[in-house]
């Protein structure tokens, strides 16, 4: 259940009243008075009664609040209970805020909504204002652009990956220009060059495949046994690659390439794969090797450097990329 910021502030007042050993069993009027003092407005009695009911709900705070007929007031049946029972230091709060800011920038609106509720819950407990994106000075910028296709399904696909829930969706292939209804056993969501992809075992293709989120239409969760892919295969598919679309029938292999003086520094500063190793020449150019499954994106990357990058090995890749040499 989502909790608004204003409700949380009232919950904190109620919590404080119920934990006050010097004035136990506060009535609803006492709580109203405390709210008027602490907050900038006076909530209605109905609101406060509803707040108490909500606080008692297991999916909200599971607060052990009871009304004592004898003392005509509310009390915690567990004297150790408090909604402030999460020990956060000021440093923790700052770190959470920074992490949230980073998530907002990387994940954009779609992720922000998911996290903001949870973070808000924690920060409101500490009377910390949730960072308002509109008023905050932006200090981290990514190239995420609002309005990209496919993000509307992000949460559903995330849940499907998390819960290992098979899904059916319609898929459009940009290359073959074909629609197909597909059943996929999702493994993970992957971001590459600011685009998001679903990686999963496709029943239709009978192997692990990559699907761009922008080409996925109306995924539905299925009541179907999840097919677990071989963990080594998954690891290799996800890690032994630069990019997301491996070339078919190409195994993991050593790729050796030569970079010109102009671009060597960039490859040294930002390795394109974890396996990258370099051997610098006296001139400043460099030979690099990577151990990967060749991908469409790797070819695209190599081609993008034109004459500044030359594939040495394997020969077939050299042939595919030498047109611009």
């Amino acid at each position: 259940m989502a909790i608004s910021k204003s409700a949380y502030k009232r919950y904190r007042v109620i919590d404080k009243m119920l934990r006050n050993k010097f004035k136990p069993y506060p009535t609803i009027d006492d709580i109203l008075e405390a709210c008027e003092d602490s907050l900038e407005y006076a909530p209605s009695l109905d609101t406060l009664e509803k707040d108490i009911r909500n606080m008692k709900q297991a999916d909200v705070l599971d607060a052990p609040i009871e009304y004592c007929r004898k003392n005509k007031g509310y009390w915690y049946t567990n004297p150790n209970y408090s909604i402030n029972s999460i020990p956060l230091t000021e440093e923790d709060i700052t770190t959470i805020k920074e992490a949230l800011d980073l998530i907002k920038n990387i994940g954009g609106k779609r992720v922000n909504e998911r996290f903001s509720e949870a973070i808000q819950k924690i920060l409101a407990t500490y009377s910390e204002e949730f960072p308002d994106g509109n008023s905050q000075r932006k200090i981290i910028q990514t190239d995420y652009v609002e309005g990209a296709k496919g993000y509307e399904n992000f949460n559903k696909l995330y849940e499907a990956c998390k819960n290992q829930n098979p899904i059916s969706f319609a898929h459009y292939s940009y290359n073959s220009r074909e629609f197909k209804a597909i059943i996929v056993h999702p493994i993970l969501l992957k971001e590459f060059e600011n685009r998001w992809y679903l990686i999963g075992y496709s029943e239709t293709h009978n192997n692990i495949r990559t699907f761009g989120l922008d080409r996925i239409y109306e995924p539905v969760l299925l009541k179907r046994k999840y097919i677990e892919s071989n963990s080594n295969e998954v690891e290799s598919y996800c890690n032994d690659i630069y990019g997301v679309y491996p070339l078919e029938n190409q195994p993991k292999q050593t790729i050796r390439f030569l970079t010109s003086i102009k671009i060597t520094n960039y490859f040294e500063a930002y390795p394109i794969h974890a396996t990258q190793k370099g051997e610098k020449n006296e001139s400043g150019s460099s030979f690099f090797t990577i151990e990967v499954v060749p991908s469409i994106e790797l070819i695209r990357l190599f081609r993008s450097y034109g004459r500044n990058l030359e594939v040495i090995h394997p020969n077939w890749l050299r042939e595919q990329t030498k047109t611009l040499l």
Partner: protein
Amino acid sequence: MIKKNKKLVFNLNIIGHGESNPILLRISLYPEITKIDFGYVTTDKYNYGGWIKIAPETFIENTVTKERFVLTNAVGITLAPAKRNFESNKDWQYFSLYFPAIPQKDCILNIIEKIKGNKNDFNYYNVALKMENAIEIK
């Protein structure tokens, strides 16, 4: 064994009776509605990919009982006579048609935009739904 009145989906991928017809992707049977998903890809046949629309009289028909269920809603496609013009012959469109709920039992359906229509009309004949092929939706 799937109980009746569940949410079921059939992944079908059936080509229509004309080469420029959309592909029938999925039929979903819900207790309240029947939803049919299509994917359309424009061709070189028309300038700028032509247009797309669906007749509001479109219906699905049980070939045995002859019971008909008329279109109740369309998402992603314009109801005729209005039409949506494409911009190129490399465009595509995903759309869904909604009909009243049909019984959740083995059946053969015709999906008819126009009775005795030509190859350009979105007609699909003898679409077999076998409950053993249905997948339950969560």
